[in-house]
């Protein structure tokens, strides 16, 4: 299956989101790929509120089975969540469980006005009733559950998508 070019998708995603941005719009990236992507979108869209980042390790629903994910990072939301319209950014949308965890964490900071989800790729395989409002690319055939699709950041900041076979 051809893996789309990440840089082209970022440009497309930026164009999708732009018409919906207001002065109040805030953005939160989900570690790790979502944060790289959010940094690019945040800059391209010229959002005025500082970018938020989240590690959803403490909210994951597989903790009981797999334990704590190694080396979780600090979540930092440097704006007031209460009343803000927020765009939640992740690189790849898959089961929807990460989004669920992110929503739970976000609400522990306050009650946002609305939350939209923006992703680079929808790889299919949803296990929860979750959909993204902004999607740059939807894979026609879902990837096998054993494989993983990830965003990678090069030293110069360029982003690429990589398919990893287990």
């Amino acid at each position, binding site marked *: 299956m051809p893996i789309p070019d990440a840089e082209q998708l970022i440009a497309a995603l930026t164009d999708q989101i732009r018409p919906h941005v207001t002065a109040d719009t805030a953005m939160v990236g989900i570690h790790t790929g979502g944060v790289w992507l959010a940094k690019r979108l945040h800059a391209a869209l010229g959002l005025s509120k500082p970018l938020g980042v989240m590690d959803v390790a*403490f909210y994951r629903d597989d903790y009981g089975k797999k334990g704590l994910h190694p080396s979780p990072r600090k979540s930092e939301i440097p704006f007031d969540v209460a009343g803000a319209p927020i765009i939640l950014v992740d690189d790849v949308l898959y089961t929807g469980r990460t989004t669920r965890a992110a929503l739970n964490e976000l609400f522990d900071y306050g009650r946002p006005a609305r939350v939209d989800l923006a992703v680079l790729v929808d790889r299919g395989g949803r296990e929860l009733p979750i959909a993204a409002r902004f999607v740059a690319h939807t894979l026609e055939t879902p990837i096998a559950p054993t494989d993983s699709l990830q965003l990678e950041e090069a030293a110069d900041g360029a982003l690429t998508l990589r398919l990893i076979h287990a």
Partner: protein
Amino acid sequence: MLNPQLSKDGKLAHLLTLEGLPKSILTEILDIAAPFTEVGEREVKKLPLLRGKSVFNVFFENSTRTRTTFEIAAKRLSADVINLNVSTSSTSKGETLLDTVDNLCAMGADMFVMRHASSGAPYLLAQHLRATGRDHISVVNAGDGRHAHPTQGLLDMYTIRHYKKDFTNLTVAVVGDVLHSRVARSEIAALTTLGVPEVRVIGPKTLLPTDVERMGVRVFHDMREGLKGVDVVMMLRLQNERMQGALLPSSQEYFKVWGLTPEKLALAKPDAIVMHPGPMNRGVEIDSAVADGGNAVILPQVTFGIAVRMAVMSMLAGH
């Protein structure tokens, strides 16, 4: 001899002591604690990790402060917390420690946070749980006799790392009643494991354990000599009953010789930090001017303590 606090695959199953724990696990706990520090600043100061779990704080020896920090940590992780002051209930009725524990297991405990006046009591509990096939229940030692107080040792390491970044270029002094101190034993074990090149203990001969040098420390009896050029001063609490056992003549003389005053602290590095596990005896082991001064990091220690205990509990519960 199998280390009772590690599982077969080398993961932390209980936290009983810091002695013998690999550096990688100590560092992992400190790393995991870091993101927990931010939870206290949120609107909802809670994480769902221990949702539906029951944490039993079993204190065979009174300690409001330690029990409270464990309680806050467990509650921030959404656990149900049950506090038991066993010193005042069942053991006075003749029930044995293991009977008490079996009863609490039957009530659905997932984790025990235990304090006991006897060194090694949490080992008995951990071994009993293993022998009775209840490996899923973990034990956190909240202080046993003179032996260990691992979460205090860890929060002290977190504090040092927060202010000094690197352990491998530090000189650290532990001052006071090392003999009776579980905190000192845990601190010394952690400092030497994390690579602190010089750990000093300072105190009178009556309050230092036999062969203390074998723990990897340099012994000083003269406080002024011992404090010269140190980066970290870790004070220990002096209990009043030490005067009865012919270990010390008086708290006045103790303060004069081993109390931390601004004048003695001036011998340490200018940016040295001063730590104390609390509760402090002002005018006995520490001068108020130091306790409230710019070098003291005693209150941040308490804050970090909650994050460190959250880290330990979430590592243990997720197995």
